């Protein structure tokens, strides 16, 4: 019994720390600093345990979850994103007078939901994970309760998110009806063997499932909520949900894709084409819309839509190289996007002031360090070597060509070129224009730690990508029997 429990140690620890222990501590300790430290320690401990248990591969709880391998890699990624966002959120929320102990509780519960999604081997667990993460995000995006934009973002996100969850759960129900199982392995063998008793039922179910996930990763045509929600939510929350949330949805998609997309049946071919089209349109729409934005937060929101499109390229054929590319890209994307949003948060004023492109004019003279770091993150997002974003894109493009989707790679390269336009536009604004208006800056506080870690990670991922890819390869996706 003991070794079996060892496998799920990361999940058990975060679970106990959040539920039983966390609630008791918060009932007696009304010291925000202590609660902050407690949850920071929880995430750090979970990440360490995920590393320790990475080798213990297997399924547990009657095939409900997988342990070890790439699920643990995602655990570490989610915990890192959580820690970085938490550190950056504290000075941000204090400045805007919106700090409450429960913010950290909800952040950790969102991480728990993401971990459930990564470990899931059963649609039911996936759904519970998606809901746990989403509900935490709904509340976190409305955390600045006196700010009307924050409340609006929360309501919008909640209503549309609840609708998307309906699609998701109905899709799962139809897939269950068509295949007789909710377990990934059983669904996969039913699809690949072409022995589906109700192919139409399965096609409708799979389409609804894809629609639900498209909403969660903000892919075309279900991306419209993202700019509004990302703009209205507190910037520290946006940083977390645009990275961790997306990575989590992909961590749940990878095992599903590796069984559904890998075969060569008719259903598989249709699914591949559908995902490829969604991917192509998503990156084009995201990047072209981003050019027209004058608000930096909205611009980054549209660019995050485009990044979801890039990552979908790795799903298309469900091969291992595709999933490895997604894992690498999700890692690089998490650090560069959190870094960029944290800088936006540092420069932001109350009630959403100081978010226009013009407010960044002359930042290179006023805040040389912040401007330099922002440039690094923007270059990485644009995919310019030698930064992490470049190598991630390279891996994704190669995997799409291997899958026989050359046209998709051409679209991806074209949309990358489009994206350079607005990323570089912001850099030019920072360095080659004169500052105007209010130029007083607020101190970054402990958010500096987040910036330092993100910068080092983005540069390291670009200079020594071989190290991280070998780690990803040694923690391969748990292929269901």
């Amino acid at each position, binding site marked *: 019994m003991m070794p079996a429990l060892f496998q799920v140690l990361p999940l058990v620890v975060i679970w106990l720390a959040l539920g039983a222990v966390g609630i008791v501590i918060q009932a007696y300790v009304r010291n925000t600093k202590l609660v902050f430290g407690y949850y920071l320690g929880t995430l750090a401990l979970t990440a360490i345990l995920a590393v320790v248990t990475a080798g213990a591969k297997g399924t547990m*709880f009657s095939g409900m979850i997988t342990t070890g391998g790439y699920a643990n890699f995602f655990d570490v990624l989610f915990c890192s994103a959580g820690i970085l966002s938490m550190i950056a959120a504290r000075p941000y929320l204090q400045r805007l007078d919106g700090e409450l102990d429960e913010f950290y509780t909800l952040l950790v519960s969102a991480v728990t939901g993401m971990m459930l999604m990564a470990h899931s081997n059963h649609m039911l*667990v996936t759904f519970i994970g998606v809901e746990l993460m989403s509900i*935490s995000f709904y509340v976190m995006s*409305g*955390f600045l309760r006196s700010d009307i934009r924050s409340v609006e973002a929360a309501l919008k996100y909640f209503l549309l998110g609840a609708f998307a969850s309906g699609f998701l759960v109905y899709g799962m129900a139809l897939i269950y009806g068509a295949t007789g199982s909710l377990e990934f392995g059983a669904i996969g063998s039913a699809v690949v063997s072409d022995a589906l008793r109700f192919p139409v039922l399965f096609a409708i179910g799979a389409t609804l499932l894809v629609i639900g996930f498209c909403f969660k990763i903000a892919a075309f045509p279900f991306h419209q909520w993202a700019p509004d929600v990302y703009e209205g939510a507190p910037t520290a929350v946006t940083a977390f949900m645009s990275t961790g949330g997306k990575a989590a949805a992909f961590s749940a998609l990878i095992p599903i894709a590796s069984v559904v997309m890998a075969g060569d049946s008719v259903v598989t071919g249709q699914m591949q084409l559908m995902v490829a089209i969604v991917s192509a349109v998503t990156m084009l729409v995201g990047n072209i819309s981003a050019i027209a934005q004058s608000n930096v937060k909205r611009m980054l929101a549209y660019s995050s839509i485009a990044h979801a499109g890039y990552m979908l390229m790795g799903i298309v054929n469900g091969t291992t190289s595709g999933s490895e590319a997604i894992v690498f890209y999700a890692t690089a994307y998490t650090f560069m996007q959190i870094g960029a949003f944290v800088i936006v948060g540092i420069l932001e004023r109350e009630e959403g002031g100081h978010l226009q492109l013009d407010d960044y004019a002359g930042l290179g003279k006023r805040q040389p360090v912040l401007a330099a770091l922002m440039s690094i993150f923007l270059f990485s997002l644009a995919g310019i070597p030698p930064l992490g974003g470049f190598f991630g894109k390279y891996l994704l493009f190669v995997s799409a060509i291997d899958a026989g989707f050359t046209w998709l790679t051409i679209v991806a390269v074209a949309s990358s070129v489009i994206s350079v336009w607005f990323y570089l536009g912001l850099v030019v604004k920072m360095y080659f224009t004169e500052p105007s208006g209010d130029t007083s800056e607020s101190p970054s506080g402990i958010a500096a730690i987040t910036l330092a870690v993100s910068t080092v990670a983005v540069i390291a991922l670009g200079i020594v990508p071989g190290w991280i890819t070998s780690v990803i390869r040694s923690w391969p996706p748990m292929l269901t029997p």
Partner: protein
Amino acid sequence: MTTPVLLFSLFAIGAIASAVLTITRRNPVAAAMSLVGHFFMLTGLYLTLNAQFVAAVQVLVYAGAIMVLVVFVIMLLNVGNEQHLSEKPGMRKTVGTLLAVLFAAQIIGVTTARPTGMTALPDSSVAIGTTEAIGQSLFTTYLFPFEAVSILLLAALIGSVILAKRQLS
């Protein structure tokens, strides 16, 4: 006539009668109360069909939670004047009648059809609906999702307090 059949017939007649009362009462509160009666009759039907769990959920969720919600809405909307509720014979009534006829045809079709190549269900399948069977699979096969839902409910609880409470210190 055996006791289960007798009970089934009694509950069925009760269910139809209360359903008719629900749509014919002019007073909204009386209609809502008839609906409560209807839900209880359905509970009785489930019990005679050996589905204890569904029966318990029916009482808890429909007769309990959902009806409280309905009565609250009636109270808050303050629909005292029944004249407002008198419906015009228009689209709504036509579509409603059409749907009812379709539904009735479907039920009759399903119950009277004799599909070939199908045998009667084994007795063991009757046990699926019992609370014992559901509890057993809930705490064995589905233990993990069952526990995961508790964290989900905790997060929802904390979140709703945070968003709804007026004063937070």
